[in-house]
């Protein structure tokens, strides 16, 4: 029983970070109907930012968080300005191809600059510290990563729902033309949303850099899982992505424990196929 409790806690913690990655992806997807294949690579760049600030300046990941988030936001912004903007009106899969090329470029650029070696953020304020809650062990880095991700997800959701700019985003998502007629600067909305998507994934990357190794491919699996999570939650649905992320985290941790860790991603993908049989438009889709 305590084993199951441990698995549930571990799964929920990692799942909340998945959620934040997926929230970043679903923002763009919901607004522009664009699948960003480079999303996971934005995360990898933010992880490297944290690593280099740690290695060169001895900064703690929590201190470098704003910088890493900013770097990811800038990359998001540049991606929009240089690539996405020009393919927004292209037929279906063209934008996807552009982001796929971009992903290849970023990943191999990182490999070119920093080699494929695994790197670790060795010491931080949090590393090695643990909490015991009843008989469940909770690593402090994991706990902070989860709480930070949940906090960020809430902030994004509130922002989209409550603020004037958030409402402009919603309006643009529904119809670009009508939003423009209502005086919304849709160009600004697109730019901002891409930056916000970058911030989400940048924060997630920072929080994970104390837990997982940093290497050029380190964002790849998260990017792929984020696709599944976004679809599982229902496209463009922030809360859908949130719950779906936790669900995938739980499924891969619990399933991985009982069936073997080599299957943990296969289980995550299987969950998607199973759930979509009952909810063909995702958990929260309609």
């Amino acid at each position, binding site marked *: 029983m305590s084993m199951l409790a441990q698995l549930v806690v571990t799964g929920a913690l990692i799942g909340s970070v998945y959620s934040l990655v997926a929230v970043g992806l679903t923002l763009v997807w919901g607004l522009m*109907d664009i*699948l960003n294949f480079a999303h996971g690579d934005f995360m990898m760049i933010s992880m490297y930012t944290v690593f280099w600030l740690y290695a060169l300046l001895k900064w703690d990941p929590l201190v470098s968080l704003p910088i890493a988030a900013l770097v990811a936001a800038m990359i998001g912004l540049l991606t929009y300005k240089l*690539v996405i903007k*020009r*393919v927004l*009106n*292209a*037929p*279906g*899969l*063209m934008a*996807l*191809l*552009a982001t*796929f*090329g*971009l*992903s*290849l*470029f*970023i*990943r*191999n*650029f990182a*490999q*070119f600059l920093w*080699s*494929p070696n695994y790197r670790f953020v060795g010491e931080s304020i949090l590393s090695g510290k643990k909490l015991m809650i009843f008989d469940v062990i909770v690593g402090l880095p994991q706990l902070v990563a989860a709480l930070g991700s949940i906090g960020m997800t809430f902030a994004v959701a509130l922002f989209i729902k409550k603020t004037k700019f958030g409402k402009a985003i919603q309006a643009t998502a529904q119809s670009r033309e009508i939003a423009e007629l209502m005086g919304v600067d849709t160009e600004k909305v697109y730019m901002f949303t891409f930056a916000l998507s970058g911030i989400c994934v940048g924060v997630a990357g920072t929080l994970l850099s104390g837990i997982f190794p940093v290497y*050029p491919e380190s964002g790849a699996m998260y990017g*792929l899982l984020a*696709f*599944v999570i976004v*679809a599982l939650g229902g*496209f463009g649905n922030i809360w859908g992505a949130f719950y779906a992320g936790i669900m995938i985290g739980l499924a891969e941790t619990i399933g991985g424990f009982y069936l*073997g860790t*080599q*299957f943990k*991603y*296969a289980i995550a*993908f*299987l969950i*998607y*196929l199973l759930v*979509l*049989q009952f909810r*063909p*438009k*995702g958990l929260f889709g309609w």
Partner: protein
Amino acid sequence: MKKTPLLVILVILLILPLVVKDVNFQHVMLMTLMFAGLGEAWNIITGFAGQTSFGHAAFFGIGAYTSTVLFYKFNVSPWVGMILGALFAGTVAFLVSYPCFRLKGHYFAVATLAVAEITKQLFVSWDYVEGATGISIPVVSDSFWAMQFHRSKIPYVLIAYGLFVFVLFVTLAIERNKMGYYLKAIRESHEAAEALGINTARYKLLAMVISSMLTALFGTVYAQYILYIDPFMVFGLDVSMKIVLLTVLGGLGNVYGPIIGASILIPLSEYTRTLLGGTGKGIDLMIYGILIVVVVLFEPRGILGLLRKRSRGRLNYGKSTA
């Protein structure tokens, strides 16, 4: 559609590798023919029927593994393995199609991706097929029976060419048959197609099975050519995406699309690799990636979109299926 330009292309594709003696060029031609064929096969389900598949690597891998395992363990000729692989891939496509086709648009696309990833994970941890280590195909002396030719690449090129022509023929037959019209009707509007009495489930399934079987054929040729396979090579997302990439780049839903797309993308990929791949620093893939972006930015409607102006209806794909 006029037949002449297609025949001219086919003749050029056949003569080029035979005339040019450069081995590296023959290799590029072989890969181009193979991926053009894969693109044609993918076009049936995605270009014609409008069901985006991001998981065709699953069928490619099944084709490669079926013939390889049969040859490696039971000494069965890869030619037989190729046909069995196609049948096996068709069966898998049949089984996964039912749950996947309940989903539409992006949900379907992600489902196919999930299927390919699950298949990869299973092969990675399946000891009987050597798991992540992969299988080195036992080398025998040149023989047609074993589909191994070490003295020259020409036999491989001819096999790839033959398969490509076969796939092209099937694609054209489907396009001109009522099935082609049915599939295009499904692409344009699922509901309208059903209202007109088209059995959409049946035709989508048929398209998927045919497409997967054709894809598997190339898996065998690839395995026999490289003489080594592992799950990451043949089931990887890269393979699925390369097929998507070149077809969309050339022109989705058009028979010429994959030929044009493959003729641009594959030489690009192969030559950057041979010129710059030796450094081990990923410069080749970096340049390949940036070239993809550049090509897309310059011609966002696909190369064919540049060549001819058609009504938007033909290219307006993807948005309506959601």
